[in-house]
């Protein structure tokens, strides 16, 4: 069905053209050039130095740690986001607005401060430090700390994606399911979940990209032990500070590829979501 477009379809003239040029220039300088530069630097001396950098044990360890961190943080945050969105949109309770604000906290708190909080809490001189060292549990400067910091920084993504979606959908369909005899699980599985499926996937993709790219909070709790507590972004920084240009940009290009993949998947989901919505005639 063709609908009259709200935007004039004429070719831009005058002001429009100027704005367009500005936007393109902006993107070129801030996005495209750096992107090309990263890849250019990585392959400046050909493929071999790139492969050597990637195959270095420290790099492999950083890749492993990054993947492990994301593998723990993303499912947990997906689950948390879903429960939080469910609670906020389907029920009324005291302190609801406080909960919503708390979910947004990681967006407003500087990641470095977030990292410091974990050091203060779990570090050897921190609030729980005595207890932890007595039981020989290492959190800060070890993998658990990195995972915790990543969870903290990325926890709004899925929830923030789902809350407006579920608010817009209301709960009439759920009520209808209940009057038809469905129990809580059936209602969730057969009615709620299919309606928010694409929102969850979308949130997970964004959350994954951020979890793998997180620097600030992780940097504070990591301790920067090469081959042990370095994630990909931290590894890039260390290599760069050591003047290992090619290695640094090679690893950086890995991160760039991850974000490009995330971007493409995100676009595909948007289109897929659009198509499935259109197939149902919702648009």
């Amino acid at each position, binding site marked *: 069905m063709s609908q009259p477009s709200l935007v004039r379809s004429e070719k831009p003239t005058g002001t429009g053209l100027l704005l367009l040029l500005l936007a393109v220039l902006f993107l070129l300088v801030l996005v495209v050039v750096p992107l090309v530069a990263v890849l250019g630097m990585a392959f400046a001396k050909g493929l071999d130095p790139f492969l050597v950098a990637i195959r270095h044990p420290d790099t492999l360890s950083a890749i492993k740690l990054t993947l492990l961190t994301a593998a723990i943080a993303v499912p947990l945050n997906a689950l948390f986001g879903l429960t939080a969105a469910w609670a906020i949109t389907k029920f009324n309770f005291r302190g609801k607005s406080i909960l919503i604000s708390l979910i947004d906290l990681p967006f407003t708190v500087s990641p470095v401060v977030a990292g410091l909080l974990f050091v203060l809490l779990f570090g050897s001189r921190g609030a729980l430090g005595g207890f932890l060292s007595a039981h020989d549990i290492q959190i800060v400067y070890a993998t658990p700390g990195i995972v915790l910091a990543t969870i903290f920084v990325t926890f709004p993504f899925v929830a923030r994606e789902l809350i407006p979606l579920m608010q817009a959908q209301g709960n009439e369909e759920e009520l209808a399911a209940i009057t*038809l005899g469905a129990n809580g699980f059936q209602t969730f599985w057969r009615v709620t979940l299919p309606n928010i499926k694409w929102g969850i996937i979308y949130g997970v993709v964004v959350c994954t990209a951020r979890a793998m790219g997180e620097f600030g909070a992780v940097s504070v709790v990591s301790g920067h032990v090469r081959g042990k507590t370095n994630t990909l972004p931290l590894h890039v920084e260390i290599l760069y500070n050591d003047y290992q240009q090619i290695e640094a940009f090679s690893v950086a290009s890995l991160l760039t590829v991850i974000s490009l993949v995330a971007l493409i998947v995100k676009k595909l989901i948007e289109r897929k979501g659009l198509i499935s919505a259109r197939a*149902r005639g*919702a648009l």
Partner: protein
Amino acid sequence: MSIEVRDVSKHWQNVVGLDSVSLNVETGELVTLLGPSGSGKTTLLRIIAGLESADKGQVYFGGEDATDARVRDRGVGFVFQHYALFKHMSVADNIAFGLRVMPRDRRPAEPQIRAKVDQLLALVQLEGLSNRFPAQLSGGQRQRVALARALAVEPKVLLLDEPFGALDQRVREELRRRLRKLHDELRVTTVLVTHDQEEALEVADRVVVMQKGRIEQIGTPTEILDQPKTAFVNEFVGDVNTLHGVIEDGHARIGSLRIPVTGQASGAQVRALVRTYDLKMWRDEAGIATVTHMYALGDRVKVTTKVDGAGELLAQFPRRSSLLRGVEPGCRVSVEVTLARIYPE
């Protein structure tokens, strides 16, 4: 199955939702809850369904206390005003939903479910649309799917919340006739909420008129129309002129209009309620009112007049009525009230 609501109250903070409401609905009866918005009719329906809990009072289904029964155990079919169809499911899957979520020991086999769906589609005359999605249906069709879906689980009680509220006039008239016919076939105890008096009077065995969380009157459509118990019922049902006047020697005087009354003390302030069809009017230069506006609506003509010394008076006549001879906008008319109900102010 019969429904009994006993002394149910519901408050939200300081707002009264329902104030000690009691109601009996007999098995197989179709009852409409009629009232303006905020009258508590939807709240009452949702309490019967279990979607809302009462602060006080009980709900009985077939004599058994169902006040604390869970929604899904009540065996009610509920039709929502905005349909609440499952957007991601086809029409057939929507209708089959209630059967598919049944516990395994009661759930019919898949072929039986499909047969049942076909049967229900035929019942609501939507054959051939089983693979469509809700967004591909018209409002009226969606409403019929919602009805079929509610009927699939063979509810003991069917509850409809403004089921035709979002549809245009022609479709709602057709659908309510179809609903009445369906009810005559299935005889499921039904409660329908509406703010449309025509709808309430046309489909119901009995009408419950509500206002401000209370029941004003319960009666057959004829009783509600002809023997309104309260001024509110009289005013809310039927097209009514509300006239404010004073009693003077056996008449209520409203400007130059005089209506004979009995049993009211002289000097009393009264409210006279006059249906638009309980009036006579004829052209008369010595009359007491001036015609301001006339328009024809099918076989009816509505005439608005301005009574000398009082406000407007609306009347309606059959289009070919001899009373209308010579009546035109701007002319003077005499007015006779054939039936008025007088309430003290």
